[in-house]
């Protein structure tokens, strides 16, 4: 069976599990591949106008696969951690797709509450049973892919840069190089190293969040808030670069919370939308890198010479 896997949204976080699970079940995996202009254009064309860019791009990925696979994997992801939710657009994703894109193959859209291992396992079984009757095979596929997911190396932590920034934002904005116009490469080229939230022990993240007057119920919010505020407070990086899709509701709150916490610590917000002209993006990154360099020079007690 050919199964269509969308290299978009939470795939960036859980690709090890997804790919291995379907592979072990004996499926042929058809990936939508990296985002490209075609995918962007189709996504914008088929998606409702109000959605954010990553959701639009997801539509484009689906469109690119619709004639190539027997089934398409679009799970309804409700929850990743206990007592938390993720963005509501994920909960309604199968409906959004069904109502916007014509001529779709059957969809695997099982609802996932991943806050317990049982929940995750039940979900995996209900998917597996659509593909095979062999329970042992499903059991095996589940344990192998879960193991691979846990072992998989995620995140970026550059070494040997004098200036380093925390790169924050939703994983699908950080790792989709087409959407973020290759921001990691651009920063590296300006001699700025990058660190992402996966490289910080989750315990530190959770401890930071305790200082908020109320526990955030968005998973993405907890991660980005805890990650950025911890690095800023302990001066483990020189600045924070936050990639945020235009009109993101969660970001609009988290960014304010972060600003409130870190005070005057250097913070650059890069908004991404359909733009593919890079001039505006480059200006902001270059200016930020310049600023960090000058600030560092002052801190190191070397007089700035301009």
């Amino acid at each position, binding site marked *: 069976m050919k199964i269509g896997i969308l290299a978009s949204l939470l795939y960036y976080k859980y690709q090890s599990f997804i790919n291995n699970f379907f592979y072990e079940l004996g499926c042929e995996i058809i990936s939508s591949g990296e985002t490209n202009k075609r995918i962007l254009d189709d996504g914008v064309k088929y998606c409702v106008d109000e959605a954010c860019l990553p959701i639009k791009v997801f539509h484009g990925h689906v469109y690119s696969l619709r004639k190539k696979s027997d089934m398409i994997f679009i799970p309804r992801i409700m929850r990743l951690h206990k007592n938390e939710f993720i963005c509501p657009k994920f909960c309604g994703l199968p409906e959004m797709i069904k109502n916007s894109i014509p001529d779709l193959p059957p969809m695997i859209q099982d609802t996932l509450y991943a806050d317990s291992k049982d929940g995750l396992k039940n979900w995996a079984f209900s998917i597996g049973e659509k593909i095979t009757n062999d329970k042992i095979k499903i059991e095996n596929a589940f344990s192998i892919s879960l193991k691979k997911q846990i072992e998989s190396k995620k995140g970026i932590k550059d070494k040997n840069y004098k200036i380093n920034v925390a790169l924050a934002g939703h994983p699908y904005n950080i790792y989709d190089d*087409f959407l973020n116009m290759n921001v990691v490469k651009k920063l590296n080229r300006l001699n700025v190293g990058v660190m992402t939230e996966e490289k910080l022990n989750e315990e530190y993240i959770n401890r930071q969040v305790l200082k908020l007057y109320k526990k955030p119920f968005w998973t993405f919010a907890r991660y980005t808030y805890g990650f950025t505020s911890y690095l800023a407070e302990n001066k483990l990086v020189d600045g924070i670069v936050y990639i945020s899709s235009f009109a993101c509701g969660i970001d609009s709150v988290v960014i304010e919370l972060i600003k409130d916490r870190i005070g005057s610590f250097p913070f650059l917000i890069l908004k991404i939308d359909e733009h593919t002209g890079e001039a*505006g993006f480059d200006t902001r990154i270059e200016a930020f890198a310049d600023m960090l360099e*000058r600030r560092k020079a002052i801190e190191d007690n070397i007089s700035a010479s*301009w």
Partner: protein
Amino acid sequence: MYYLGVDVGSVSTDIVLLDKSFSVVEELYLKTRGKPIQVIQEGFKILKSKYDDKQITAVGVTGSGRNITSFLIGADAVKNEITAHATAALNIDKEVSTIIEIGGQDSKIIILREGIVLDFAMNTVCAAGTGSFLDRQAERLEIPIEEFGDYALKSTSPVRIAGRCAVFAESDMIHKQQLGYKQEDIIRGLCEALVRNYLNNVAKGKEIIQKVFFQGGVAANRGMKAAFESALGFEVYIPPHYNMMGAIGAAILSSETVKKGEVTKFRGFNIAQSNVLQSSFECDGCPNRCEVVTLEENGNTIGCFGDRCGKHSSKMTV
């Protein structure tokens, strides 16, 4: 011995020549009109009659068109607008603590403390709150943008215009017009809307302390200066070459490269006469379908960019 600075912005292209002590000896303010290359050639034609290539010690470029320009004229310093504007302002006055810069597509706030950029912010992907907002409304009202500020100052009781988005502002403005409000009151309202938008978005959370410099093309608008002053409650200074600050900064930054002992990469004023061709094509090497631009001068390719992978641009040996 001159330093040449070029700022290719969305609305205007500014060219300056500075002498050794960074005083402006020549300034050209040209409208870009979407044709950066032709405009630079036009400017160089004017400069060519007065100056010699050998008099140029170093060249700096800035602005959103800085990359294409650096290929065309040969630049020693290619710098972003924030650094360029801050450099130019500090050269005039070391005391400046805040720079409000509003250009055609961008608006910025730069926070300086003791001569270094401590913080900055720019408008996000949306160009509301920038010069193009005023430009558009001026066009609608059929008032030359140069006179816009004077109209605003004539107002006795400004009307409130929604400032969040240029499209919202326009519909609000039309409704107020239809109700019979005076034009100057509407224009003053627009200036106030822009200032409100700037302070609430771009400058949000930033501490604006004196001395404040107001620069960029929009500083020409006296109504905007007045609106800023009434919102902030203190005086806002407009430097003498307010619309040239980016170019001046780029020229000053270029002088640093010469200090390091480098010879200028300047390609000479003669490019004014060259036959420069821009062409673009969609690369079909991969699904990214990059829009690649190539720049040809008298049949020789002098620049190539826009590809993500570097397949085309890396062939260039500039």
